[in-house]
């Protein structure tokens, strides 16, 4: 019956168009992003065509992009990491402290320390989620408080000032290579590596499998715990490196660095088509989502909307994205059923 008559994909227009629609998930928001840039640039050519404008367009979302890539990896495994903002805060402050307390420390070591601390905090999240079998939402809500609290207790009313950081390090935050900001280059490298990993390595594909159906993943004999912990470690490490870069970019680090970042990162991933129920989406989508979020933020005042409304626009975007995904899913499901029906 059914299986015998299934036509091979190559010639099946229905399947192919479904494939296109799916691909359009990332293309769709990329188009939205371009539209925003075009509208803002038409209102004010400086938005794109001044050297600062071009730089900020690339630079501003870079940090969020790094964090959103990590968040997307976690969400793909059907988990969520609410603690990224707190992790970023801690590593940003650690960065400053290292430069102050160990004069002359090579920035490379600081990066290693930041990534290490982030990974450690991620490991704590992942281990609690995997072994205690408690939902990530609760665990990372708890560690959001804990990490932030530790940060504030450690920082006190201290703050890192730009002058505490060596100029060479700060150049990382503002420097450019071929008029592309170093931070953006770094973020894109992270993105490409993550995307390559998720697509081409077994362990990357297993993350999708786990998010798609954790029970089936268990039946397959996939190492679910190890992969979930790995995803949290990556998310923590990326938030950690984002913290180091935050210090380089903003120069000033107070105990509130990264406050509220978690919702932005989740928002970016969701807008980019990463399903909160796991198994679907790509880090490309999350990255474009991050760009869209922050670019809209900068574009609103330019097109004459008070930027107070920015958050409302973000909300509409998130809801629009998930509703769109749902509509696409329902339509695809119906089409697949009808397809089954059409067969003799």
């Amino acid at each position, binding site marked *: 019956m059914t299986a015998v008559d299934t036509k091979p994909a190559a010639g099946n227009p229905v399947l192919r168009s479904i494939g296109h629609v799916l691909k359009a998930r990332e293309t769709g928001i990329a188009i939205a992003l371009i539209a925003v840039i075009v509208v803002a640039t038409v209102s004010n050519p400086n938005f794109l065509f001044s050297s600062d404008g071009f730089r900020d367009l690339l630079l501003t979302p870079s940090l969020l992009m790094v964090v959103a890539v990590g968040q997307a990896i976690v969400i793909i495994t059907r988990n*969520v990491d609410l603690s990224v903002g707190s992790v970023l805060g801690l590593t940003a402050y650690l960065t400053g402290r290292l430069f102050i307390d160990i004069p002359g420390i090579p920035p490379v070591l600081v990066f290693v320390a930041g990534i290490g601390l982030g990974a450690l905090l991620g490991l704590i999240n992942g281990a*609690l989620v995997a072994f*205690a*079998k*408690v*939902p990530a*939402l*609760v*665990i990372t*809500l*708890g*560690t*959001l*408080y*804990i*990490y*932030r*609290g*530790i*940060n*504030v*207790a450690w920082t006190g009313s201290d703050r890192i000032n730009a002058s505490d950081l060596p100029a060479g390090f700060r150049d990382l935050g503002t420097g450019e290579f071929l008029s592309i900001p170093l931070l953006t280059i770094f973020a894109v490298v992270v993105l490409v590596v993550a995307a390559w990993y998720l697509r081409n390595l077994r362990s990357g594909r297993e993350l999708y499998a786990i998010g798609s159906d954790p029970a089936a993943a268990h039946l397959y004999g996939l190492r679910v715990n190890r992969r979930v912990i790995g995803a949290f470690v990556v998310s923590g490490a990326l938030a950690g490196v984002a913290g180091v870069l935050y210090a380089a970019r903003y120069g000033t680090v107070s*105990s509130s660095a990264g406050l509220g970042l978690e*919702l932005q990162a*989740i*928002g970016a991933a*969701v807008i980019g088509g990463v399903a*909160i*129920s796991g198994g679907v989406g790509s880090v490309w989508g999350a990255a474009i989502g991050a760009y869209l979020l922050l670019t809209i933020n900068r574009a609103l005042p330019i097109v004459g909307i*008070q930027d*107070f*409304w*920015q*958050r*409302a*626009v*973000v*909300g*509409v975007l*998130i*809801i629009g994205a*998930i*509703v769109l995904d*749902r509509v696409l899913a329902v339509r695809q499901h119906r089409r697949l059923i009808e397809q089954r029906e059409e067969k003799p």
Partner: protein
Amino acid sequence: MTSAIDTEHGRRTYSAYAHPLWRRLLVTRESAIIGLLFLVVIVATFAVPNFDSPLTLTFLIREIAPILLIALPMTLIIITEEIDLSVASIVGLSSVITGLGVQAGWPLPFAAVVAILVGTVAGSINGALVTFVGLPSLAVTIGTLALFRGIAVGLLGTTAISDFPEFWTDLTRMNIPGTPMPLIIVPFLVLAIIFGVLLHFTPFGRSLYAIGLNKEAAAFSGINVGLTKFWLFVMSGAVSGYAGVYFTLLYNNARGDNATGLELQIIAAVLLGGVSIFGGRGALPGVIAGVLLIGTLSSALRLAGVTSDIINVITGVLLVASVVSASFLAWLRTKRVAAIGRKKGRAEASDG
């Protein structure tokens, strides 16, 4: 038809409960939290100077009243295995609406009713997206968290409205005459009783637990899962709207960023109070004790000069510890049952 089923064998009798009443009441998550609350109060009374002042109670209740209020519908929502992250944004939105209303010259009660209605509409948007569009509530309310907050901030910018009629602000801050108990406790108690009865003594409440534990079985038992959830989100919106009015009058201040971050405190308190994030488990007394526990602890620590960051760490640790310990206890229990099963299995095997 009953006659058909009466078997010829003598009827068995069953005891309704496996354990005596005291054990069922005392050996629970709820009583553990209530016990912990009493412990904290006693220790603080002796160890923290000025904790025994009546002002402590006044300030404590006033400050946590919004959390207490919103924790009620939040409990019901989490019991059905959903979540509402947008409550604090609805508080902010309702606060702004109250402020704008008063600024436009409306009498305060009218402005308040409009604000509560706006909250209710916001809640029904959540409910509709979750129920009729079929989206996960976590994703929906992350979106509306930004949306409602964005509207609130957009309407008022970062300016504040702070000229509310003195009669109402005084009323909000008033105590029940002769006691250090703020007046807000009265509407809270009324709502707590309504929600408590709804959850624990009505068919509706029964259906909430069933939905939380097994949606499919609930649907097969004639429970309209979607509609039930929809109403819960509406209730949550309405109560958040009311809390927004209270918040505005208490601080005599309508701002778009009022109550930012409150949602996480509410959820932390509800989970600490013994409600399972997986749904289907938890009781209102535990939740109220959970809110009071976090509030009392931070009040005592603040009085003792401990900074707010340590208080946050303690909240986080309590939250993580409470869920991890719950899952640890569950694991121990399955181990025990499994051990009994194994013994039984071996016995059966040697018989056969």
